[in-house]
């Protein structure tokens, strides 16, 4: 057992850090630090810089443009990215549909889609959840019927993050209505510009427009857009959801936010002294830091385990990452709220697109707090995570 990173790993960390310092557009970084939203162009511009460096799809196999890094290197890269901070690669393309395509797709799909994902020529979004199928995803109803050389897709997807920017959506569709739940589902790629697609934005409690409803009415999709085998889509979906085991903890994001809390709490006064000098507040903050350290160590255990024994058998500790990671993200946004206290109140109606620079950036703190309630709901709610632990780890 050894906690220290090797010399090579430390040098790698320095290399990554240096690259971020030199290449992340300062405006992009500032907006992230202040909790502002980035425009589509700002995000895409950064991702293309990353891709030119060869780090756009770092965890993919080398033959598709990956880096061949060790799991520790990936960990370091993600931590530095989150702490700098710089925008993480678009998960829907890079972490979700990309791996499904290179694992289960045909040669033509790989050749066409993978480079476009890496360079964000296509902005991807995820068509999984439906109004009636949240945690019980396999009950989904959107159907794709074969008609000649195409599928005709009908149904409705929801919580589709950033669908307003998307060129493509990967959908789970029912292709065999007679089959029971999990069987009879297929993984189909749909062009968002197809006739019959309507995107309706959903405004969330923070005032932002991140998620959407996507309606599919008689949308025609070429048969060649099926990934893998028909009716095997559930297997691919499980693969996709199980792929991101360690990134979900977002340790770097929480570290960055704790620094922010400390910075802000040294400036804001309460009772004639900075909030950071209040014993009660400091103890609350220290308690979160300890929880975060425990989470970081748990994550490192999983990372080291994957590095040594491959990703085949997940370390039981990995199911801890989502639960604790989301709780800590929520607690840290809560502490930021506590720091600014009554100044959390002003609401910026145009704050979401980051265009209203006149507004004090503290105006982003309450939205960030409200917005972060989502992290214990998405990606398999924390209650679903407990179901997973119950069955997969405890055998109950």
């Amino acid at each position, binding site marked *: 057992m050894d906690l220290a990173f090797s010399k090579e790993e430390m040098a790698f960390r320095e290399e990554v850090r240096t690259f971020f310092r030199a290449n992340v557009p300062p405006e992009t970084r500032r907006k992230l630090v202040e909790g502002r939203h980035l425009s589509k162009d700002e995000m895409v511009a950064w991702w293309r810089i990353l891709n030119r460096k060869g780090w756009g799809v770092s965890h993919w196999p080398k033959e598709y443009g990956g880096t061949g890094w060790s799991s520790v290197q990936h960990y370091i890269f993600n931590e530095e990215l989150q702490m700098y901070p710089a925008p993480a690669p678009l998960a829907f393309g890079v972490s979700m549909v990309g791996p499904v395509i290179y694992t289960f797709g045909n040669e033509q799909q790989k050749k066409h889609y993978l480079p476009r994902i890496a360079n964000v020529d296509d902005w991807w979004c995820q068509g999984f959840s439906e109004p009636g199928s949240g945690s019980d995803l396999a009950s989904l109803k959107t159907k794709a019927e074969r008609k000649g050389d195409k599928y005709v897709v009908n149904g409705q997807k929801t919580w589709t993050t950033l669908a307003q920017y998307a060129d493509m959506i990967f959908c789970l569709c029912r292709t065999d209505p007679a089959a029971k739940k999990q069987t009879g589902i297929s993984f189909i790629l749909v062009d968002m510009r197809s006739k019959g697609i309507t995107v309706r934005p959903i405004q969330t409690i923070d005032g932002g427009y991140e998620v959407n409803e996507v309606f599919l009415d008689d949308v025609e999709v070429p048969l060649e857009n099926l990934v893998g085998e028909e009716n095997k889509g559930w297997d691919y979906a499980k693969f996709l959801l199980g792929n991101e085991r360690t990134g979900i903890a977002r340790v770097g994001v929480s570290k960055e936010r704790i620094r922010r809390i400390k910075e802000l709490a040294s400036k804001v006064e309460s009772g004639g002294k900075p909030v950071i000098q209040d*014993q009660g507040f400091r103890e609350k903050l220290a308690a979160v830091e*300890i929880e975060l350290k425990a989470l970081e*160590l*748990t994550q490192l*255990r999983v990372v080291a*385990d994957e590095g040594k024994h491959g990703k085949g058998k997940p370390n039981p500790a990995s199911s801890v990452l989502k639960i604790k990671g989301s709780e800590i993200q929520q607690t840290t946004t809560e502490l930021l709220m506590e720091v600014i206290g009554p100044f959390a109140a002003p609401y910026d109606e145009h704050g979401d697109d980051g265009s209203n620079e006149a507004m004090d950036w503290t105006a982003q703190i309450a939205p960030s707090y409200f917005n972060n309630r989502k992290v214990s709901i998405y990606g398999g709610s924390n209650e679903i995570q407990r*179901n997973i632990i119950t069955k997969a780890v*405890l055998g109950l």
Partner: protein
Amino acid sequence: MDFDLSEEQRLLKESVDGLLSDAYDFDARKKYMAEKGGWSRAIWSKLAEQGLLGLPFAEDDGGFGAGAVETMIVMEALGRALVLEPYLPTVVIAGGLLRHGGSAEQKAAHIPAIIDGSKSFAFAQLEKNSRYDLNDVVTSAKKKGAGWVLDGEKFVVINGENADTLLVTARTKGGQRDKNGIGVFAVAANAKGVARKGYPTQDGLHAADITFTGVEVGSEAAIGDPENALPLIERVVDEARTAMCAEAVGAMDESLKTTVEYLKTRKQFGVPIGSFQTLQHRAADMFVAVEQARSMSMFATMASDFDDAKERATAVAAAKVQIGKSAKFVGQQAIQLHGGIGMTQEAKIGHYFKRLTMIENTFGDTDYHLRRVTESGGLV
């Protein structure tokens, strides 16, 4: 970065786990508890035979030169079996004081008897008003000729009732809370002027309140610098805290396992109660708490290599906070999920809860260590 055990460490784990699974089930533990002094000399000898009592000592002193990871392995196993024998006070604490502070003569005088199991030790540190502050010492050691005279009272000295030798913290100069002027003295338990009042503790161990009245010891009794032993004491107590974190992880592991087993077998409403989601999620939360505690136990263990003493102390304090919180949650929920049977002395789960509770209150509770982490400026 590596969290795997080495081949040698894996063998150590197998051997200590093997010994305890053969000789230390819940019924055997009851028998050992009924023996004189509340623990088994036969088990102590077995631990000695397997080399476990000599693990951390240098090869030159007759030991195996093992490190913090090996201690973690042993303590986790001892926690899992709820072992009563005085490994912590003898090997970890007295051993630590001798290893880090003892002269060659002192090592030669005491370490062989620890390694071969012929003597056990106790750490007489807690005082009526000291609570968790190691620098708060009233017991005095006054110079007399080349030696010292000790006067004062110590409380809840674990293994104090049975120990052959007591390692006593005492003030050689300065005021009650001064950091300077604290020494550590080795005192034979049967020395003239030592009065011990022994009693069992909540978790099935034995302790003593000890009065020292004009106890005379020679110059060789002072371990380390008699006027500035606080850094030594702090270092060794941090090692003890780290060891207790590992012990707690073992006890939590076994508590969770026992509870899950109970959920699978206990039937109500015609079904195993483990089929109820409320109880499943509670058990899942216990698992999360145990894993977070395990991570911090490893962190504290590996922190013993940190060069910076402050960073090391903060890491241990942080671990003690996590372990305290996890232990309280896991212990309390284990009782709750067992229902009425969990309230009984005959079920083993309550005994785990009691040990976990006492661990939280030893060498600084959760609030105490949270304050230490806060004062250090935190971890991020």
